[in-house]
């Protein structure tokens, strides 16, 4: 609100000599219209904010895979640095993945027992530093009066702000058909879980169930 008010006052101060009354009226009205904006997603519930994104390899024949295994802890990736973690939420996530895979018809085996597919789970956080120049018109109002016609001489100030987004990344890797030429295992399916409630244990079962239920092609029965 204050920013809007200051902006209007500033425009009144600096432009009034140049503009006729009518044009000024339009200008103020326009600023008033442009300044008001609503946040269309502030009424979303935590459940509604969740987004499930899955990718499938359309060339893969999922029926050929019979056994699977899963990592013993969650990979935590933050700005390309990684480590592992096994908190309560991580354990809930991993065990729910196992339940879902078994329901789809895959057999759970130990990681060393040559599983056909392996499941990786990661918590990825990307942090970015952003920069904006600070518009001078926010601070151009001197309430004391007596300096009519003067504006402030601003140097170019910059403001920094950080944005950060986290998401779950679950990938299914084909161990059965390794690419021997360049020594890689192909990712045949992956899922991202994004939104505001992803760090809460309350939704973890629902989140895992959702990514598998929207990937019916994984069914192996």
């Amino acid at each position, binding site marked *: 609100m204050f920013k809007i008010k200051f902006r209007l006052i500033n425009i009144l101060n600096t432009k009034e000599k140049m503009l006729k009354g009518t044009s000024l009226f*339009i200008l103020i*009205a326009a600023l008033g219209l442009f300044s008001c904006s609503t946040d*269309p997603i502030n009424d*979303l519930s935590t459940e509604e904010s969740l987004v499930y*994104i*899955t990718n499938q390899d*359309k060339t893969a024949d999922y029926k050929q895979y019979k056994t699977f295994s899963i990592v013993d802890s969650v990979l935590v990736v933050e700005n390309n640095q990684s480590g592992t973690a096994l908190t309560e939420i991580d354990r809930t996530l991993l065990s729910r993945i196992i339940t879902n895979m078994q329901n789809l018809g895959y057999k759970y085996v130990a990681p060393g027992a040559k599983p056909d597919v392996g499941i990786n789970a990661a918590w990825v956080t990307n942090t970015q530093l952003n920069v904006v120049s600070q518009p001078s018109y926010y601070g151009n109002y001197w309430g004391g009066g007596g300096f009519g016609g003067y504006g402030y001489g601003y140097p170019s100030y910059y403001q920094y702000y950080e944005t950060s987004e986290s998401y779950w990344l679950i990938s299914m890797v084909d161990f059965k058909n390794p690419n021997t030429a360049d020594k890689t295992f192909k990712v045949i399916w992956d899922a991202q879980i994004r*939104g505001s409630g992803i760090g809460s244990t309350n939704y973890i079962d629902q989140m895992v169930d959702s990514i598998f239920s929207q*990937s019916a092609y994984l069914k192996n029965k």
Partner: protein
Amino acid sequence: MKKLIFVAFFLFAFSAVYAQQAPQLYTLPSPFERYTHYLVTARLTGAVPLGSFSDNYIDKSSFQNYSISLEWVLRNSPLSLGGEIGTTYFEKRIPRALYESGDETVSAVQTRTLTQHPVQFFANYHFLGKSSSIQPYVQLSGGASILDYTLYYGTLAQQKQKVAPTYGIGVGSKFLFKKDGKFGADVRVKYQGTSFKYDYIDKGISSVNASVGLFYRWW
């Protein structure tokens, strides 16, 4: 006798002058007819999406729309010219659904929004005079629209901003609150089209906008 004729002449002359002046007082046109004058109108608008914009993106009517216009009502002409600036906002929430494209499947609650700030010049043709208490008109307008297309998947946003050409055609009427008064109401129904193509919107944005406004005129 001469005196009598003199008095009679004066009486006759004055009565003739008086007889001429009296009706003139009442037939003197209002200043709004004699001068080119200004008219400012603030409108509140309900907008109903049309065509492919309604079919593919948002079909929900919107009532969060405002505009303000300033017009020059020309002397000795049924025309008025002016500019209008406004804001239109459409929004629709779609419950959780699956969206597939290529290898990707997305499950999300979509919040579809479209914000428009049209800046238009317009010409009105009035069918009745400026002192008539009801003044129907037709309107043609054209200009540019500052557009913001933001589609939310949950809290993730996909956004496109653009300035696109916009135009409109409308019919309306002004209603004066008082004969030759300065204040009045304005009712208008207008078709508005904007050329825009992005994502879900493949054939532009079109809507029928019905507005109720208040105006003030001065010279």
